[in-house]
């Protein structure tokens, strides 16, 4: 017991001595942050912690906590990490504050590209972009003489060859865990076929030709995937890659760095990145663009907001980016695109460009409806046309209940 206490005390005092090593000032106001838990956020949170008096909660379930935590008065967190998908409830409830004055005071190093403006007011500061890109085992593809696929048709053709060669368990991986992940796969594929998600009157437009094509394309891939693909989320696909079980996947760019993590990966240096595949000739890559960034709570004092923003700028500085260059596609000065980010940059700069994931109330409802209704199609219980009708109905019911449809 005594020993444990001693060790603990020693560890804490050590932390105390190194705490302010890399920070240009000492933070004296208690600041808390709630954000997602992937690599880039860890890097930013660590950099902020160097200034002291900072607590970060890195939680992949942050999306369900954030709206009520920011609605509390005083807010439970000063800073929030958001993406274009999760900023919606905070914008709607006005629980985050406009940052124009704070950006003017501390944001000298920010590029205009980073400032998320809603009706001219800066509501968030982006630090990175995220999107899907094609990750593939370069060694396997070159062994089999396959060119890097650029469309889903080419991916399936390549997958068929890989399957025939039998070099991996499953040629393809996908984040098709029923619910949010699976819905996201559809939200990626559908615009790739030129489909629009909503009509002008807020009804959904997924029940269309493009919707049928998107569903059929998703299902076509399942013959090349793990039979248990309906339970696999991003982490699972990442691990399948790392363990050499799959050869290709259209996966989040934020997962790229894990391929070369020598502690986890058996395929270090073998996975290459290319732009997200297109769904049809001349179309945009079948994916959506995302940004991740920080927001400052409205329900805190101006002094706290000031300190929180200053700290956030310290966490999102060039020094942090240089130390964690491969953790994300940073928008911050000092980022040098490496081989890991080639795919994501190719995706983001493609012409026509993929759409940004919409930050709207309707999108949340549609996302849920997609996640709940598509599994029945993929398990074969229902055909594509009936599934699209079911999605439309589920969305309409939810939208009426939420007040966005009359």
């Amino acid at each position, binding site marked *: 017991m005594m020993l444990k206490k001693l060790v603990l005390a020693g560890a804490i005092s050590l932390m105390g001595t190194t705490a302010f090593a890399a920070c240009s000032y000492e933070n004296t106001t208690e600041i808390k942050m709630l954000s997602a838990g992937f690599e880039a956020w860890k890097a930013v949170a660590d950099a902020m912690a160097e200034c002291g008096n900072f607590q970060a909660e890195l939680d992949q379930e942050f999306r369900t906590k954030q709206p009520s935590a920011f609605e509390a008065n005083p807010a439970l967190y000063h800073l929030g990490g958001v993406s274009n998908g999760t900023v919606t*409830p905070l914008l*709607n409830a006005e629980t985050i504050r406009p940052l124009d004055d704070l950006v003017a005071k501390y944001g000298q190093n920010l590029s205009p590209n980073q400032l998320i403006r809603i009706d001219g007011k800066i509501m968030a500061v982006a630090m990175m972009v995220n999107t899907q890109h094609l990750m593939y085992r370069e060694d396997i593809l070159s062994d089999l003489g396959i060119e890097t696929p650029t469309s889903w048709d080419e991916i399936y053709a390549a997958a068929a060859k890989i399957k025939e060669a039998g070099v991996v368990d499953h040629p393809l991986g996908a984040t098709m865990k029923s619910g949010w992940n699976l819905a996201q796969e559809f939200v990626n594929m559908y615009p790739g076929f030129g489909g629009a998600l909503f009509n002008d009157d807020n009804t959904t437009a997924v029940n269309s030709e493009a919707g049928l094509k998107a569903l059929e394309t998703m299902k076509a891939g399942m013959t090349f995937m793990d039979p248990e693909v309906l339970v696999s989320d991003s982490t699972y696909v990442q691990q399948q890659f790392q363990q050499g079980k799959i050869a290709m996947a259209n996966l989040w760019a934020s997962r790229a760095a894990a391929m070369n993590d020598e502690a986890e990966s058996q395929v270090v240096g073998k996975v290459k990145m290319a732009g997200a595949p297109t769904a049809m000739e001349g179309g945009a890559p079948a994916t959506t663009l995302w940004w991740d960034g920080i927001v400052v709570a409205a329900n805190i004092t101006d002094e706290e907001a000031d300190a929180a923003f200053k700290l956030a700028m310290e966490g999102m500085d060039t020094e942090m980016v240089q130390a964690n260059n491969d953790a994300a596609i940073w928008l911050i000065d000092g980022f040098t695109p490496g081989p890991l980010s080639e795919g994501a940059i190719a995706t983001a700069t493609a012409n026509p460009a993929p759409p940004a994931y919409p930050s709207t109330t309707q999108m949340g409802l549609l996302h849920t409806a997609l996640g709940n209704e598509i*599994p029945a199609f993929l398990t074969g219980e229902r055909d594509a046309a009936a599934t699209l009708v079911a999605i439309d109905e589920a969305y309409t019911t939810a939208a009426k209940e939420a007040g966005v449809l009359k």
Partner: protein
Amino acid sequence: MKFKTFFAFVAPSVFMMTLFIALPLVSVFIQSFQITQPVMQQLEVETCTPGFITQTCVTELKTVPIIGEDGKIQTTTQWVGLQSYRNVLQMDKVWEALSSGRLGDILQIDFWKALRFTLMFTLLTLPLVIGVGLLIALTVNNAARAFRGPVIFVSLLPFIVTPVIGALSIYWLFVGDGILTAMMERWSGTNISMFAQAWTIELLMYFYRVWHVAPFAFVIFYAGLQTVNMDTLESAVIDGASRWERLRHVIIPHLMPLIVFIALIHLMDCYRVFDEIIGFRSQAHVISLQWLTVDFLTPDDAGNRAIARASASAMLTMIGIVFLLILPLRRTWRDHKGGAH
């Protein structure tokens, strides 16, 4: 006991039950007939988001809630009668499926899909839990005294495991190339995917639930076995009753109140099956009523929660439990009255 003393003893419990069970129940009941929604307006909003090099700005018509003077989103609450129940039950589709003879279509509606599994799960595991529990109890009761302690300890272990953790452990043992799947694959020589189709997932769920709950039945039965009248048993032996006949005519009738008790608890618990769905990630294939309620309640990325439908679904779950419990409760009631005279 004087009424005052009785009251003093039960008052804290009654208070807690009112506060934490009765009042929330009333509130859920009321909310199932209401819909509370934000007041929405359509605004032209310009949104600028980063691209990789330059920003893209789009101006679009957005539907956003109106913020009231107190700084909160303005909401309206309407009485909608049975609308939320209709949304959950989707009876129009059920009649359509019935009249067209395609009964399978009913199981594509979330509620009915969940009800099918929940009922089957509850009713199939019930006899298994009682049977396995009784079997362990009889085995332990007949084991040599020296072994009893360790055997009881080992049999109780599954019951100690936190349900979600237990479900996750089973998931990890069987998913992908989990240890047990890999073993089965080596043994059978074929590629096995336990989580790729509904029936294998359900099978694992039944197995897990019985494994987890049987120790509870065992403890209760084991205690009951200690009170079996030895005279009756001995006279049954003298009358030439076989082991089976003694079990059938002496021990089981003696344990009957306990069997009913376990059935009651099990029906109540099992009808609210939830951990298995989350632990096994089975949403694509198998869902339960309780999961459906939680899914309605979980906010999406835009912060929407279907509170009205969640309330309706919760009330329907409760009605289901009441129906299931009527039979065993009537029996207990009869026994209770029978014992009084």
